[in-house]
């Protein structure tokens, strides 16, 4: 746990999404948890969006938790990018919530 770098962005307000990105030396591949009212309809698209952002940022290993409150795809993109960049900005050995 000491090597985790955590970035969080977004909120649980309507039309927003809260994204947590956890970077850890022990992580292998991507672990993605999505909690969304539209999971059945758009779960696959949401997963693809998150994966695309992580790939763009060059992050191959992470745990990502997504709590959706009806966000548009562009909001999910923005919140994922912000959370990931915040996690990347945390010096190794430290942890930041927001």
């Amino acid at each position, binding site marked *: 746990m000491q090597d985790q770098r955590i970035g969080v962005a*977004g909120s649980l307000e309507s*039309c927003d999404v809260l994204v947590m990105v956890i970077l850890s030396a022990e992580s292998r591949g991507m672990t993605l948890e999505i909690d969304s009212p539209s999971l059945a309809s758009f779960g696959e698209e949401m997963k693809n969006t998150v994966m695309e952002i992580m790939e763009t940022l060059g992050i191959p290993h992470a745990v990502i938790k997504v709590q959706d409150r009806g966000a*548009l795809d*562009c*909001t999910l993109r923005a919140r994922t*990018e*912000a959370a990931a960049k915040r996690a990347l900005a945390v010096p190794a050995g430290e942890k930041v919530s927001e």
Partner: protein
Amino acid sequence: MNRRRLRRTSLYIPGTNPGMLANAEVYGADSVILDLEDGVPVSEKDAARILVRNALQHIPYRRAEVTVRVNALSTPFGRDDFREIIPLAPDAVRLPKCESADDVREADAMMTEIELENGIEPGTVGIIAITESARGGRNLSEIAAESPRLIALNYGAEDYTADIGAVRTKEGRELDDIRAKVIVAARIAGVQALDSVFGDVNDLDGLYAEALRVRLLGFDGKSVIHPRQIPVVHRAFTPSDQEVGFARRVMAAFREASSRGAGVIALDGRMIDAPVVARAEKILALAEAAGCLPGER
């Protein structure tokens, strides 16, 4: 960049609020301000910048003019704002804390550099300068004339009055000086003059009175902070029947005189010259925007 488009209302949308960003146009403002500056706490500057960039990329804004209030280049956030926002070519950036022509020159140069890097025609993105200090007020003429990107002057009432040591009142006499400066500088430079916000969102009568007052002073529009303020300001910026009637007769007389090559135009025994024609055109444009111009113009 449409220099002369209608800007009766400019609605502030916090860059932190995805719901409002998605619905920015729905409220009917002529211009929307996606705000990265005072509406965003320091801890959220990074996330707001990314959110607004994604909104510009993916939300199909069509009706309203889309502008972004960036942070001043003198702050730690300004350069990152420009780097993220200019490549998306919003209609304009709103440049806060404009103190001198140097601020406009620096922004203009950076915008040109980013536009060229991104294959955008230099000058595509306009600038609406916001002055918020005594120094900025003194330098408004230079600010307005510094760049062809400049499309309007605006001022921040709260910051300005705080800077000059005035007390904010409902009546607003403390703003007489800056309003006069903004109008004169804008007219000399041939750009629009935009009034500051009316802070009490529950006092719609007070808002109407102030909006009407600034229209009669010569302002082209007013910033608003709540959607409910939009129809009130639009009503204040809608010319009266008498104004519209006179403007129509001026334009008819102007057209008739032009068709026969007459140099001097008279209406009701009064000489109609270029300023009167220009005022009539502005009145009719406002009336048309308000949807109260049936029939011929």
